[in-house]
C-alpha cells in the first residue's frame, strides 16, 4: 500500500528529454545564438525545471487539485473572507478573447469595449458605495488600503497639512496598521467598547490635529455594525481628519446603507469578496478604491474617462499619487465583477439581506454551545469564542478548527479578531442554503460535544485528511522553501 507515502513532487516525475509542449521550428535563417545575444550573456546551466510529458503534467495537477478544499467542493465559513459562489458564466466572460487576449499597451481607441466596461463598472461602484470616483489600480484589499491612505496623504499635503497619525481600532485586520505604516503614518490603536463598537471616549482622546485618518471596518471584524458611525465620522471630521473604510465587509450592506452616506471619504472594496470574483487560493483579487470628490484629483493614473462618445485612459493627472502597479489593474477580475453586478442589478440588496439572515440564523443555532462575546444582531458574520472549551476541556480553538476538517468542512477563521479570546469567526455568505447551515451547525455542535466527551480526539484532529496535523513550528524553524536538484541537496539549507 502506497497510501502512507509522500505525495510526489512534480520534480519526482521528471525524466531528461521529456516535454509537454511542441515547439515549432524557428523557420528563420540559422544564426548562432551566441551571435544574437552574445556568448558572455548566454545561460551556462539550464534551469532545473522538471521534464514531463503532457499526461504526467495533467495528472499531477489534477491530483493536486483534488487535495484542495474549495467553494465548489464544500462549505467555507471563513469569516472576513466571504467565500461565496463564484458564478461560472463570469469565468466564460473573462476568457473571451476580446478580453483575455487584449494587450495592455493597445491604444485606447482600439480597446473601447474594455474601457466602456470599466467606465460602467465605476458608475455602478459609485452608486453602491455613495462615492464619486474609483481607481482600478489596486490589486487586492491591502493594496487598496495603501492606495487610499496615500490619497489621504496627498490631499492633506496639498492642503499643506502635516498630519502624521492614523487611528486604527484594535479589532482591525492586520493589513490596516501595515498599510498605514507603508504610507509612513504612525499607527494609533483605539479599543472597542463593550458592545463591540469603537470606544468613542478613547477615540475622542486621541483625535486631534495630528490625525490624518481613521481606518474603520464597517461592519467591523466582529461582524457588528458600528452603531455610532455617523458620530465617529463627526469626531474625525471635526479634527480635520478623513474617514477611511476598509470595505472587506461591504457585502453585508449592499443597497442597505452606503459608506458615502455614512461619512466615509475613501474606501476600498474587495471584489474577490463582495462581488464574487474567485479568490484563486490566494489571489488574484482586486481592491478598487472609491473616493469622494475632494480626493479625486489624487487618484492613481490612469483613470478611465469618457470624452464625448469615446473612452480614454487618462494619464494626465497632475496631482495624482502616481501608479501603484503597471498597466490598468486586474482587468480580468473586473470583467467578472461587472458580470456579477449585471446579473443582480437592483436585486443586489437581496445579497446582503440573505447574507445577514444566514449569519443570524447560524448564530441562533450555535449560541448555546459557545461563548458569544458580543451578543448583538450580527451582520454577515459573527464571532464566537472557544474560551469555554479551552478552560473546561483544554481544547484549543485550533483543535476545534482541525476537527471540523474531519467533518468535511473548511474551518472558520480563528484567532481573529485579536480582541476575542480563542476567536471563531463564522461567515456563511448568502449563497449557502439553509440545509447547509443546519448540517454545519450540527457538526460544530457535535465537535463541542466531543470537546467534553473525547477531548483527545479533538486535540489529535484532523484524522481523515490526506495529511494529519502539520508541524508549523518545525517549518518555521528550519525553513525548507524549495526543492533542489539531488546533487545540491544538503549543500545549502
Amino acid at each position, binding site marked *: 500500500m502506497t497510501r502512507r507515502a509522500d*505525495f510526489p513532487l512534480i520534480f519526482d516525475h521528471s525524466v531528461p528529454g*521529456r*516535454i*509537454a509542449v511542441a515547439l515549432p521550428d524557428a523557420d*528563420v535563417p540559422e544564426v548562432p545564438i551566441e551571435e*544574437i*545575444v552574445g556568448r558572455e*550573456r*548566454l545561460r551556462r546551466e539550464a*534551469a532545473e525545471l522538471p*521534464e514531463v510529458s503532457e499526461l504526467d503534467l495533467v495528472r499531477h495537477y*489534477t491530483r*493536486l*487539485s483534488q487535495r484542495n478544499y*474549495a467553494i*465548489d467542493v464544500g462549505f*467555507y465559513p471563513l469569516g472576513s473572507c466571504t467565500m461565496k*459562489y463564484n*458564478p461560472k458564466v463570469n469565468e466564460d466572460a473573462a476568457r473571451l478573447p*476580446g478580453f483575455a487576449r487584449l494587450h495592455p*499597451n493597445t491604444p485606447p481607441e482600439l480597446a*473601447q469595449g*474594455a474601457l*466602456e466596461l470599466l467606465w460602467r463598472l465605476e458608475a455602478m461602484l459609485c452608486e453602491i458605495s455613495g462615492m464619486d470616483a474609483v481607481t482600478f489600480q489596486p490589486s*487586492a*484589499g491591502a493594496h487598496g488600503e495603501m492606495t487610499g491612505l*496615500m490619497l489621504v*496623504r496627498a490631499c492633506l499635503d496639498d492642503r499643506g497639512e502635516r498630519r502624521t497619525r492614523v487611528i486604527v481600532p484594535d479589532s482591525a485586520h*492586520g493589513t490596516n496598521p*501595515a498599510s*498605514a505604516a*507603508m504610507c*509612513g503614518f504612525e*499607527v494609533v490603536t483605539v479599543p472597542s467598547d463593550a458592545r463591540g463598537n469603537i470606544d468613542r471616549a478613547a477615540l475622542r482622546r486621541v483625535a486631534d490635529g495630528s490625525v490624518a485618518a481613521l481606518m474603520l471596518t464597517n461592519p467591523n471584524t466582529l461582524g457588528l*455594525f458600528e*452603531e455610532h458611525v*455617523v458620530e465617529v465620522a463627526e469626531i474625525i471630521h471635526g479634527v480635520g481628519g478623513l474617514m477611511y473604510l476598509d470595505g472587506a465587509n461591504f457585502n453585508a450592506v449592499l443597497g*442597505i446603507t*452606503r459608506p458615502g452616506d455614512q461619512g466615509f471619504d475613501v474606501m476600498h472594496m474587495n471584489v474577490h469578496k463582495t462581488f464574487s470574483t474567485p479568490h484563486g*487560493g*490566494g489571489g488574484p*483579487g482586486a481592491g478598487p478604491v472609491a473616493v469622494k470628490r475632494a480626493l479625486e484629483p489624487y487618484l492613481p493614473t490612469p483613470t478611465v474617462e469618457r470624452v464625448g462618445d469615446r473612452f480614454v485612459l487618462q494619464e494626465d493627472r497632475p496631482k495624482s499619487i*502616481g501608479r501603484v*502597479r503597471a498597466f490598468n489593474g486586474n482587468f*480580468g477580475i473586473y470583467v467578472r465583477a461587472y458580470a456579477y453586478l*449585471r446579473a443582480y442589478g*437592483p436585486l443586489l440588496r437581496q445579497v446582503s*439581506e440573505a447574507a445577514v439572515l*444566514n449569519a443570524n440564523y447560524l448564530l441562533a443555532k450555535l449560541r448555546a454551545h459557545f461563548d458569544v462575546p458580543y451578543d448583538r444582531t450580527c451582520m454577515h458574520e459573527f464571532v464566537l469564542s472557544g474560551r469555554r472549551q479551552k478552560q473546561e476541556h483544554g481544547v484549543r480553538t485550533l483543535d476545534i478548527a482541525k476537527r471540523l476538517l474531519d467533518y468535511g468542512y473548511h474551518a472558520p477563521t480563528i484567532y481573529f479578531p485579536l480582541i476575542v479570546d480563542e476567536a471563531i469567526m463564522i461567515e456563511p455568505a448568502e449563497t*449557502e442554503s*439553509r440545509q447547509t447551515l443546519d448540517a454545519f451547525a450540527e457538526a460544530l455542535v457535535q465537535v463541542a460535544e466531543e470537546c467534553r466527551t473525547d477531548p483527545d480526539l479533538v486535540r489529535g484532529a484532523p484524522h481523515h485528511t490526506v*495529511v494529519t496535523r*502539520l*508541524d508549523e513550528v518545525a*517549518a*518555521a524553524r528550519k525553513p525548507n*522553501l*524549495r*526543492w*533542489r536538484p539531488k546533487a545540491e541537496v544538503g549543500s545549502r539549507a
Partner: protein
Amino acid sequence: MAQAPHWQPHRYLPMTAAERDEMLRATGRTAIEDLFTDIPAEVRLRRPLALPPALAEPELLAHLRELAERNAHADRLVCFLGGGAYDHVVPSVVWHLAGRAEFYTAYTPYQAEIMQGELQAGYEYQSMLCALTGMDVANASMYDGASAAAEAAVMARDLTRRDTVVVSAAVHPHYRRTLETYVRHLGIGVRTLAHTDGVTDPARLRATIGAGTAAVIVQTPNVFGCLEDGAALAAAAHDAGALLVVTVTEPLSLGLIEPPGAWGADIVAGEGQPLGNHLNFGGPYLGMLATREAFVRRMPGRLVGATTDREGRRGFVLTLQTREQHIRREKATSNICTNEALNALAAAVYLAALGKTGLRRVAELNARRAHYARTRLTAISGVRAAFAAPVFNEFTLRLPVPPDDLNARLRARGILGGLALRRWYPEMEDAWLLCVTEARTRAQIDALADAVAAEVAA
C-alpha cells in the same frame, strides 16, 4: 421601513421566500429590516439601488461578448506590442489545470491539511522560480512586476538601513512610477540614472552611488529591449555596499540569458505574466520576487515551506508568517495579503510543461525570430536600430516617419504595431519598440517588414 414585499428568486441565492420567513422566525425576527436596526436610520438607503436591471445569463453573455468584440485583441490583429506584457503561446493544458475549480474557488490555504494541493503547487512554483532566476528563495507571488520592484526597494532599505535607491532610466517607466509612489512617504529617495545608448553604464552608475545607496535597480532585458551588462552593474553596486535589485519583465529571457542569481543580484523582482498567463489588458498578472537565503526574513509576501505531519509524511504549510501583517501588523515586512496565487500556479504549470529543454528552446525561438525581424526591418531604407546592445525578443528602431502614424497604417493591414516610445520617453520621437515572440510566425514577420517598407516609402 416596511418589509420588502417581494423576494425574487435568483440563481445565485438558494433562499426562497418561504425559507426567508422561516429563518427570520428562527432568529426571533419578523422582517428582514429587523436585522438592520443597528444601522442609524438616517444613513439607511430608502430607495432601490439605481443599477441597470438584472440580466439573465444569455443576455449577460451577449452583452459581454459585444463589449469584448469591440477590442482589437491579439487574435484579431497580429501583435508586435511588448513593453512589459508579452503575447506568448499559452499551451492549452495550462488553464485546463490552473482553471480547475478546486484551485480557483479556494481561499488562501490557512487550513493546511485540506489545502495540500495549493500549498504543494506553491512550493513547486517557488522552486521553479529559484531555478529560473538562480536565486535561493522565492515567494509565492506579489501583485505584479512593478509593485514587486517597489517592495524590493523597501526591502533593500530595511536590509541596508540606507535610504536612497538609484534606478536606471532604462527600467520600465510604470515600474519607476510605482516605485516612486511606494517609497515617497517612507523617507526613501529615488535617483534616476540616465541610460547610455540604451543601456545602463556601469561607470556612470559608480559615479552616482555612494554610502547612502540602499539599492541599485536595473532591468534586463530593459525597457528598450537591450540586455544590460549585469555583472558589471552588480560589481558597481556591491562595491558601494548597495544591493542590486534586478527587474525582469520578460522572464522567458532567462531560458537563454545567464540569470541574475549567477551574476550577483541580491533581489530579483519581475513580472511573471509571460509564463502562461494571458494578456488580460494588464492583469491579473503576477509579481515574482526572489532573493538570497540570508534575506528571507525581510521578504514580503507568502512563503510555503515543507514540513511533516504526525505520521512523518511530507506536507506543506504557509511559513515564516511572523514577517506578515496579520501577526506583525505595522511592523510587518509588507501589507500584502491576497497576492496572485492562481497566476503563480499557471506559471508553474507553464514552466513544467516546457521543462528544462523546452524553456531553452522557446527562449531561443524568441531570440531568433526577433533577430530575423530586426534584420529585415533595419534593411529598410530609413529604418535603423536605435541601440547597439544585444537584445532578446524586443528591440527599438528609429523610424523615418512618426511611429504613431505608421501604427495607424499597419492597423489597416491587420497588424498591431510596436510601441511609440515617445509615450514614455517624450524625447524619443522616432523610436519604435517592437516585440517578436515565438507566437509570431516567419510569414507574419515578413508581412510586417513588407508593410513597413511599403508605408515608409509611401
